[in-house]
């Protein structure tokens, strides 16, 4: 039972990684002179779109919250709208946090905001897909002994590693290497992406490694 679960998780994560890779490859067919560093904002949008799309597809295929009794259309629509609002709010919150952490307030607003969008894509969107717009569930998942399934466990790991990646991405900025990727927010977005991908890779492995110790109450 557990082994198959982990396998499914692994495939899903591969799909997500694949979407990130696609976001690097595909736009070069449509946009001239596309590269991750030079046309960074375009890439940010594309990557955000791709990852969101894959997450949505995964959600529609697997339906983690299928037990929901009321599944009327209006319910679905309100749920979807709620999700959108949550996403936007998380973008704004991230933006504010970046500014509090030292990002410029007025210059580079678009860049900062798109960084917030991509970080939300890596963290909020999977949360929305898996847990729905339910803040209490989120808080539960991100606290000690709060996870109830390997899906939530992997969500925890990928989210934390995305945040860590974004945080670590800030460190090269003051260095005087004068590389194009040291510019705000490129190193942070790259860090977040690498963190996300690393989380996607690590979490199935970690769960597989610790499958004996892991016990979930509701699983």
């Amino acid at each position, binding site marked *: 039972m557990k082994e198959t679960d982990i396998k499914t998780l692994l495939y899903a994560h591969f799909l997500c990684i694949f979407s990130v890779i696609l976001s690097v490859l595909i736009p070069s067919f449509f946009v001239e002179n596309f590269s991750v560093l030079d046309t960074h904002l375009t890439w940010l949008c594309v990557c955000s779109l791709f990852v969101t799309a894959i997450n949505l597809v995964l959600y529609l295929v697997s339906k983690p919250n299928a037990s929901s009794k009321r599944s009327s259309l209006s319910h679905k629509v309100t749920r979807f709208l709620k999700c959108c609002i949550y996403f936007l709010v998380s973008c704004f919150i991230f933006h504010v*946090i970046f*500014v*509090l*952490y*030292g990002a410029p307030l007025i210059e580079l607003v678009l860049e900062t905001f798109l960084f917030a969008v991509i970080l939300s894509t890596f963290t909020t969107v999977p949360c929305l897909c898996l847990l729905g717009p339910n803040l*209490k*569930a989120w*808080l*539960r998942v*991100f*606290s*000690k*002994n*709060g996870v*109830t399934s390997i899906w939530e466990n992997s969500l925890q790991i990928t989210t934390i590693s995305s945040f860590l990646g974004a*945080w670590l991405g*800030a*460190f090269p900025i*003051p*260095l*005087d290497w004068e590389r194009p990727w040291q510019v705000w927010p490129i190193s942070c977005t790259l860090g977040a992406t690498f963190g996300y991908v690393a989380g996607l890779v690590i979490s199935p492995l970690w769960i597989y490694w610790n499958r004996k110790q892991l016990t979930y*109450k*509701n699983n």
Partner: protein
Amino acid sequence: VTDSFSCLTRMRKVSVLLFLAWVCFLFYAGITLFTSGFLLTRLELTNYSSCQEPPGPVFLPWGSQGKPGACWMPSRFSRVVLTLIDALRFDFAQPQHSHMPGEPPASLPFLGKLGSLQRLLETRPHHTRLYRSKVDPPTTTMQRLKALTTGSLPTFIDAGSNFASHAILEDNLIKQLNSAGRRIVFMGDDTWKDLFPGAFSKAFFFSSFNVKDLHTVDSGILEHLYPTMDSGEWDVLIAHFLGVDHCGHKHGPHHPEMAKKLSQMDQVIQGLVEHLENDTLLVVAGDHGMTMNGDHGGDSELEVSAALFLYSPTALFPGAPPEEPEVIPQVSLVPTLALLLGLPIPFGNIGEVMAEVFSGGKDSSALAQASALHLNAQQVSRFLHTYAAATQDLEVKELHRLQNLFSKASADYQRLLQSPPGTEAALQTVITELQQFLRGARAMCIESWARFSLVRMAGGAALLAATCFLCLLASQWAASPAFPFHSLLLTPVVWAIVGASLYAGLLTMTRLQVELVVLEAAAAVGSLLPFLWKAWGSWRSKRPLAALLPIPKPVLLLLLIRLATFFSDSFVVAEARATPFLLGSFILLLVVQLHWEGQLLAPKLLTVPRLGSSTPTGPPRHSGAYALRLGIGLLLCTRLAGLFHRCPEETPACHSSPWLSPLASMVGGPAKNLWYGACVGALVALLVAVRLWLRHYGNLKSPEPPVLFVRWGLPLMVLGTAAYWALVSGADEAPPRLRALVAGASVVLPRAVVGLAAAGLMLLLWKPVTVLVKAGAGTPRTRTILTPFSGPPTSQADLDYVVPQIYRHMQEEFRGRLERTRSQGPLTVAACQLGSVYSAAVVTVLTLLAFPLLLLHVERISLAFLLLFLQSFLLLHLLAAGMPITTPGPFTVPWQAVSAWALMATQTFYSTGHQPVFPAIHWHAAFVGFPEGHGSSTWLPALLVGANTFASHLLFAVGCPLLLLWPFLCESQRPRKRRQPPGSEAEARVWPEEEEEEEEPLMEMRLRDAPHHFNAALLQLGLKYLFVLGVQILACALAASILRRHLMVWKVFAPKFIFEAIGFIVSSVGLLLGIALVMRVDGAVSSWFKKLVLAQQR
């Protein structure tokens, strides 16, 4: 019994303090040992050149030895006028050519104002030259004067002693002029008086200290300049103008005032040229440049390029000046002037003559140039010989190569002289060879005068590391109940004396000189090793090694990142931005940790019951997202504090905050008034916040003098500060008849504020316990703020102590009386504020310290100070939210608290407009209360500037005990549910009727209940804070030693180390003071209790 007990407690307190002082001493020993190896000085030779003793065999082309006045070379000019314009940057003097006719040149206030130079350059090209002179750092005036007279290279260590300059012992131009019997007249900057005491036949000195004063020095010079010139009673006339430099310091180069000042200088030059006679050379030189802000001291391009201008009424130069002025080292002026005046070149000169100047004679120009260069080379070679014989500084291989080069060039030169007039080409090769030698010698000297003593550096770093380890070990050990205070203290002292005397004895045996630094280090090592041995032994027997690193992992990671940043020059430069980032990470980490452990939100919010056997650590103490709000507030404060950011020189793209300039420099009335209002508002807000806080804990009720002082003295201080600011910011606009009054008030007001603060501190130390005792009939309502007389249930652990027993005894007695007197109404003793007696004292002291420190800063920094208080308040609350109270002890202060506190101290250093580089020091602080300067005293201005620079270190170190006290203080805010029936959380605030039995919050009295643990906790807190700071200084020392050949070592790492070292010393002293204060309060509380007991027994 009581006496012996209190004696024991006092002994223990003293031993805690002494132990901490000893640890500080170990750190100091490590720092001084490292510094003595790292910041080396150049050896100053006291040999002198003389006429009778040429530097080598004489080969003069024109056998002119016999000529009168000729020394090494016949003099070309009999007189010289040396006009030094302080901070005359090269571009100030650069001629401005409009690129297109009709179009005005760039209209910066400092460009193109020296028109007379330009005119002379254009009209008399054979008489004038303008050079871009390259200055060696440090670009401070005293170092430059040393270089301009000795021709040598003053080293880094002199940089700090700008206030206390001392006589130059090395051979120098002034000395040579004196021994040649020339009359030197000096006027201007009085730094010369200290450098060359008694060297001038006539001198007009003017104080250089008051950088606000643009005109006194210059008008003083102008008063004497032309009369002296016309009188003819001089051979060398030196005029050192300071106006340009002071204008740079006060207004910056971009201010219209600079244009006025430069135009005045232009008139001076014009006048000088008119008064000049034919045998006289005019030199106009800047001693250094200035940055965009008008500061100097570092080595940025703008600071090290100064102007140098020569003018001779007779033709001096063979050709017209080049389009772009030549770049020459500044010290080139020394040998050139010496030879032009027919003097010996100063013995230690490493400059190279400007060959061009020697070509105007009748001989073939190249030959004259070669002979001047040859003399110069002989002198430098002699100096190198002597220097290499005296020390081992110079690199042998390079020295050898240079000697070979010199011999070859010298031989070529001789051959040329003996052969009939050689070809130009041969002469040119000789000149090139000689120049190569001179440049090589200079480069080698520069390279090797920054040589380090690796043994001392390694020893110092090892000592620092061992002391850090000791702090870690002892801080863990102090938590255990069996911590042996007395033996711990005595052993190191005894061993220190043994070690020091052993070392001294050894040296006396071998008849070597005893060096204080090494003696200190020997004492430190002697005391450290036995202690570590003992501690290690007892540690190993008890606990596993893994517990040796008690710092929680995320905190450890953040600390390591912080330490790693010291090893990168980019990060040191960007520390002002990196520190808030780390602090923000720390804050979020704390919040997330609280959430992770389920303390952030009430468990009912978590829909799924948590698993695992996590024991209920008590219900969450605060409602909702209390900690989250604190965290966000902290982040906001940190970000706002970042607005007061001063840019380091290295980042040209960065703009310093405009709020760091004094209000006096603002133009425009309404904005100025608004800012002034905001600053006073910040002062008042600070005052009101502190008073509200004190009132909240009931500390403003007693009629004791300290409380009265807080009520009335603090507002007076605020008033004084506000009035002083008003005067200072509007001093220029004051009507003339009020000038004297304004000047007087700006002297008196700051001193009055400092006096008030000192009086307040004295009062507080005299009577730290300001408890309001109300005996007699009280209503039950006042009983809610009573504190100590209803202790926790008796526990066996406390019975070892006598004072708690007395408490308990008193408590029983009161209970008994209460019951007896219940019929007549309750008799109570109300003791307000006893629960916050320690922290109230600390907060009051912090406020009293903050106001004078604030006065030393620029007005608008008051907002940053307000943020500082707010920030530390929020941080304390956040930390307290995560700290469990362990009654009856042992009490601990977690590592994250101490680390965050230290990090915030660093962040505040930056957010009060400081940078760890010398040009960024706020020198103006020395004038607060002393607008006229300090005369000859140097310690007072140093103290004022130091207090300004290290204000945040001091405040946070003194406030360190709050980390221990605050969780107890927060106890009173927690909903008291212990007596509530389970499930009725909603009505937590409804008190049951039986108020007498309700347990009062003991708050800080819990600490008194366990004096042993209290002392141990203070010791532990001190050790942990010292550890965090010590690891920082260790990282700085390691960075400076590992990267000692780095390009940035003198620019970034060395200043950083020096600032960090001084900051450490200030912090450690502050820490000791803070802990001593808490102990003083504790002693006072004890005696207060004793008195109360006696009173009750009667």
